[in-house]
């Protein structure tokens, strides 16, 4: 049964230095508040995993939390490149960042294998690209039935997965809807999990297209209203596209970035 915890306690207990951490969310429901709490608590040497590392991973990388990034698309959607990510790769600032790079199809299937308790996933993918040259985690396998050569990628098993959802009930069951991305697979693939939610309710109102994650499959739930901002929580908020555009300027310069982190993350209070 998921424990109801404060965000600060949840991060303190579940995210440890050196962990492999997935904060998932596909544009929608990105766990920004949890990411900020990881920065505030000064976590180091993390292997960050995510299909679409965007602004929150740019912030974690720029704040020096990451040693390694496993990903498939690292950009500011619709805006351009991530400058802190670029600075880390191109200039090792504030620290060198090791990369393990995949395609979306590969990453999605790696989570599916992790959630399924399988050692690897099979897909038609990567063939002919330069991606397999740079990691041993993209290999081929012959189908035992047809002989066709397919691509194999190993399961992802994060130490901890963090996701944001619309609602939890008091038993720690979690309800999310709208674009739910790869969150279910990422959470079930992980050894520990933390879900931040907009609202804690007595009873769920069923909604079309909802995904309900049972509380007994989740380690902890924290109430973090607005915890997806500048991403959004359908039914609660809209995507703050102006912020994503403003981030391009904020993140371009190391000092401006540091000032922003100090003002908006380090000296800000975690939500209770």
């Amino acid at each position, binding site marked *: 049964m998921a424990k109801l915890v404060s965000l600060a306690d949840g991060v303190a207990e579940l995210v440890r230095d050196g962990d492999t951490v997935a904060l998932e969310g596909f544009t929608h429901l990105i766990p920004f508040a949890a990411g900020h709490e990881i920065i505030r608590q000064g976590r180091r040497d993390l292997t960050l995993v995510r299909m679409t590392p965007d602004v929150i991973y740019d912030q974690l990388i720029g704040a020096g939390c990451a040693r390694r990034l496993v990903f498939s698309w690292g950009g500011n959607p619709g805006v351009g490149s991530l400058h802190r990510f670029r600075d880390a790769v191109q200039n090792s600032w504030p620290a060198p960042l090791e990369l393990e790079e995949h395609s979306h199809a590969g990453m999605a299937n790696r989570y599916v294998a992790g959630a399924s308790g399988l050692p690897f996933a099979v*897909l038609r993918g990567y063939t002919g690209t330069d991606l397999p040259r740079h990691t041993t985690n993209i290999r081929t396998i012959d189908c035992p039935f047809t002989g066709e050569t397919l691509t194999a990628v190993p399961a992802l098993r994060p130490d901890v997965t963090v996701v944001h959802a619309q609602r939890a009930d008091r038993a720690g069951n979690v309800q999310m809807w709208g674009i739910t*991305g790869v969150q279910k697979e990422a959470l079930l693939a992980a050894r520990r999990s933390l879900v931040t939610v907009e609202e804690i309710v007595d009873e769920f109102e069923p909604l079309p297209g909802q995904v309900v994650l049972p509380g007994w499959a989740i380690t902890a739930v924290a109430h973090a209203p607005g915890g997806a901002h500048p991403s959004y929580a359908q039914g609660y908020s809209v995507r703050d596209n102006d912020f994503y555009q403003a981030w391009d300027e904020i993140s371009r310069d190391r000092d401006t970035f540091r000032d922003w982190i100090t003002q908006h993350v380090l000296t800000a209070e975690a939500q209770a």
Partner: protein
Amino acid sequence: MSANYTADEMMTVAAARQLRDGTACFVGIGLPSTAANLARATHAPGLVLIYESGCLGAKPDRLPLSIGDGILADTADSVVSVPEVFNYWLQPGRIDVGFLGAAQLDRYGNINTTVIGGDYTDPKVRLPGAGGAPEIAASCGEVVVIVRQSLRTFTERVDFVTSVGFGAGPGDRARLGLRGGGPRTVITDLGVLEADPVTCELTLTRLHPGVTVERAREATGWPLAVADDLATGEPPTPDELAVLRALMAA
């Protein structure tokens, strides 16, 4: 050019015209999304837009900034998980057209969106990377690329093969086991290139009004093949321009 439209508008309109009504189109963000939404708002109301966030049949009335804006989920026929969109919809070849951008492109339509210059571990410019593109390029019925044409983008060799076009030439897609038709069409701000059915090489088949062959050659980092029956495309119609500008402003 004394035209009352920009080169980018011409490019977007030309790309939109490429999309046939009733087909399913896997749409990347940026120029592809703009062109696909223009097509849906003009000649192809039945165009099915598929976004990798899991939105199947999205019908936004304004342009999304990202592939996961709420307007896409709100207007979709179905919102599915990300593993599902890649495994059940893209991989088996259910999607007719993949619509991609590029940072670099070579004469066989191989695409780089990963790194430019230096080497992989120490690049001059680190780009966002692959996203859904490698499998979109592999598995869609055909691929349409939309990219501004310049010596920076149209390169003799791409620094990194992120998504495979026709590889090193004829027969390579079959050898690699890629099931989709590959990049048949490339739309630029100067004109339209199509893959030659025999050589697979991108060949200039159409220029936008007011653009010369010389200009297209100067913006290409390899000796550009030009079709014998090179044509000049139609400028944007007032309706296309009005709809495009309304979409951009909304």
